[in-house]
């Protein structure tokens, strides 16, 4: 489980939250702008400090006595605006993370690079990439540091429509293939419907109730497909002589 209770001020703004969410899947943190989404994320990462407790999968990151520094937490953070280190090529940005990654299982370098489609970008300098490309590289980099919790702060919000369309499919792939728990800040309902397993709502620095599972919709895989996709699936099944087994993945069509 991921448990946190945080209470403190940021200037004139008070954050007062307490929640417990499962340490798997994507938890969307949604709320209007200025409601404290980013502040909460920064507190979880240890980039900002208020009183409280944070515990992730049995490891205490913060309590009354201790405050673990960000670099010891094993937390991945994808910032709102793509934040590749500008003096390093994409490859060296990724290697920066891999060299410092913790022990334990995690995606391999090549696998991660492929999963986010950044093979062709490895030799490039961040200044030459589009917003979407940068954000994909930043996500690959966060994964290569083998975090125990991945925090994503509106990773699509600084991108234009083309950039969003570029990155979103990769986020969906990640969601399907990663077991890593993710807290995903967003104010976009469409994104949340496509990417999240559950939703936490925040308003004026306070959470509105516990996390709501979106699992009901996901129990039926067809419920997430639009009509065209369902038809395509049916056609594929007929073409295969109805010999499809139940493990057939509808999304591969």
């Amino acid at each position: 489980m991921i448990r946190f209770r945080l209470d403190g001020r940021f200037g004139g703004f008070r954050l007062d939250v307490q929640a417990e969410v499962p340490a798997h899947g994507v938890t969307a943190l949604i709320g209007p702008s200025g409601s404290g989404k980013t502040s909460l994320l920064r507190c979880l990462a240890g980039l900002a400090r208020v009183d409280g407790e944070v515990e992730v999968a049995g490891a205490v990151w913060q309590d009354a006595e201790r405050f673990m520094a960000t670099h010891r937490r094993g937390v991945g953070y994808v910032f709102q605006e793509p934040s590749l280190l500008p003096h390093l090529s994409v490859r060296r940005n990724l290697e920066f993370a891999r060299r410092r990654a913790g022990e334990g299982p995690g995606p391999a370098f090549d696998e991660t690079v492929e999963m986010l489609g950044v093979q062709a970008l490895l030799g490039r300098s961040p200044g030459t990439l589009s917003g979407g490309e940068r954000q994909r590289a930043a996500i690959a980099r966060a994964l290569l540091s083998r975090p125990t919790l991945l925090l994503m702060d509106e990773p699509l919000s600084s991108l234009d429509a083309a950039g969003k369309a570029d990155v979103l499919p990769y986020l969906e792939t990640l969601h399907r293939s990663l077991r890593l728990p993710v807290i995903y800040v967003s104010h976009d309902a469409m994104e949340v419907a496509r990417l999240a397993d559950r939703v936490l709502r925040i308003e004026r620095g306070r959470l509105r109730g516990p996390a709501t599972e979106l699992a009901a919709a996901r129990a039926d895989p067809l419920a997430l497909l639009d009509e065209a996709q369902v038809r395509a699936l049916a056609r594929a099944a007929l073409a295969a002589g109805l010999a499809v087994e139940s493990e057939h993945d509808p999304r591969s069509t």
Partner: protein
Amino acid sequence: MGQVVWITIALATLTTVILLVLATPLAWWLARSRSWWKEIVAAVTALPIVLPPTVLGFYVLIALAPSSPLMDLFQPFGIRTLAFTFTGLVIGSVLYSLPFAVQPIRGAFEALGDRPLEVAASLRASPLDAFFSVALPLAARGFLTAAVLVFAHTIGEFGVVLMIGGAIPGKTEVVSIRIYQDVEALDFADAHRLAAGLVAFAFVVLFGLFMLRRRADERRDGR
């Protein structure tokens, strides 16, 4: 003439190396600290920009003179005075050029903002690791500017080196003072050689700096 050029270059190089090492932690602290009294320290380090070199030279000379409180501390090591010595010149030059090292480096550190360091921390880089692997390379421009300014400023100084060094040939006489003495002795030929040499040197250094910057910017933009 070779010796006076050699002493000048040795003084400028030593001053530059010492200042880059000393100014870096100071500039980092000035850029990152939130305490208000850091501005007192900032003002003190900037004093040599405003003060006439003779004022600074005067106080440093007094501090380095025999049986000054500072020199009393060095007495046990067999050092009685540093006035009119090359070491004294280096100390004076370091103080005199301090702001020219601190300001560009502080500016470069401030321009970084918090984000690159937060990124580094989220990728498990300790603060020291992040300083060397992220902050230093990103502030490279500031270091380059600082190094060139300090080196050139030390070559160009006159008042401080005259006060502290006393222009002892072969020991503390540098090019700028030698030119003055040549002119006083009506040895215009020697003065011309050194003066023209300094003009050419200054041009080459500044041109090299601007080209280096241009290349660094191009590399960063991936051109």
